[in-house]
């Protein structure tokens, strides 16, 4: 083992920049529809981005979890709030759907 090997597993991970999109009532509650965001808390996840963007002030929830009914999509596929994000991903926060 090399004496210069880092204590943590693997090299430092660069903070990903993702395209964040909002829809419908959530977009109107925040006043913006999309922006490029560089994550500040790693590993980056949708839930961390939700708090980084202070979206809870527009769409409150109890505690630190995502509000009930708000869903997440990564690269246009439904995803979990703890899914790791990669550089260049498209992250969408979806307010409760009203169906077809």
């Amino acid at each position, binding site marked *: 083992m090399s004496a210069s090997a880092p204590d943590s597993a693997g090299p430092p991970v660069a903070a990903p920049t993702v395209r964040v999109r909002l*829809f419908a009532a959530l977009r109107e509650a925040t006043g913006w529809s999309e922006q490029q965001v560089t994550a500040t808390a790693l590993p980056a996840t949708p839930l961390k981005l939700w708090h980084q963007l202070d979206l809870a002030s527009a769409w409150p929830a109890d505690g630190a979890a995502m509000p009930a009914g708000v869903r997440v999509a990564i690269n246009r596929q*439904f995803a979990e709030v703890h899914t790791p994000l990669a550089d260049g991903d498209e992250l969408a926060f979806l307010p*409760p759907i009203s169906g*077809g």
Partner: protein
Amino acid sequence: MPTSTSNPAALVSVSLHPDPIDPYQQLEQWQAELGAGGAEGAAATSLFIGRVRGRTASGAPLDALELEHYPGLTEGQLQRLASVCACRHRVVAVMVRHRTGLVNCGDAIVVVAVLADRRGPAQHCCQELLETLKHDAPFWKREWSRGVGEWVMGNTPLVEATAP
């Protein structure tokens, strides 16, 4: 310009339409495409046409209903929902046509058609898919009434006839 996805293996055809659609023309075109593709003829066809009612959920006069969607995600989800339903009921083919954008009262908002060998699978698949679309299709509706728009939270209920 409608956007569409299709899955030839499951014979599921889904498309979104920002402009008004004629449900019967859609049905005719779809059946012609199935025939041209060599699909096996089916004895039973179940059809549902949903139109925009003239009142809001609270009973006020409706100017129009607006449907927002997430291009790419919505089509993919509709395709998945229809494929699962088609597979479960072992039907021959499923068609879903859905409006997006501003839809006027009385205009068709959704058309679902199911082809099967028997009436049971055709009707059950159509009913189940409609309910699934009502709850799981990624659309956001906004009711416009007297010039004011209000986002709809939740789904319209399935109202059954009740015995007197």
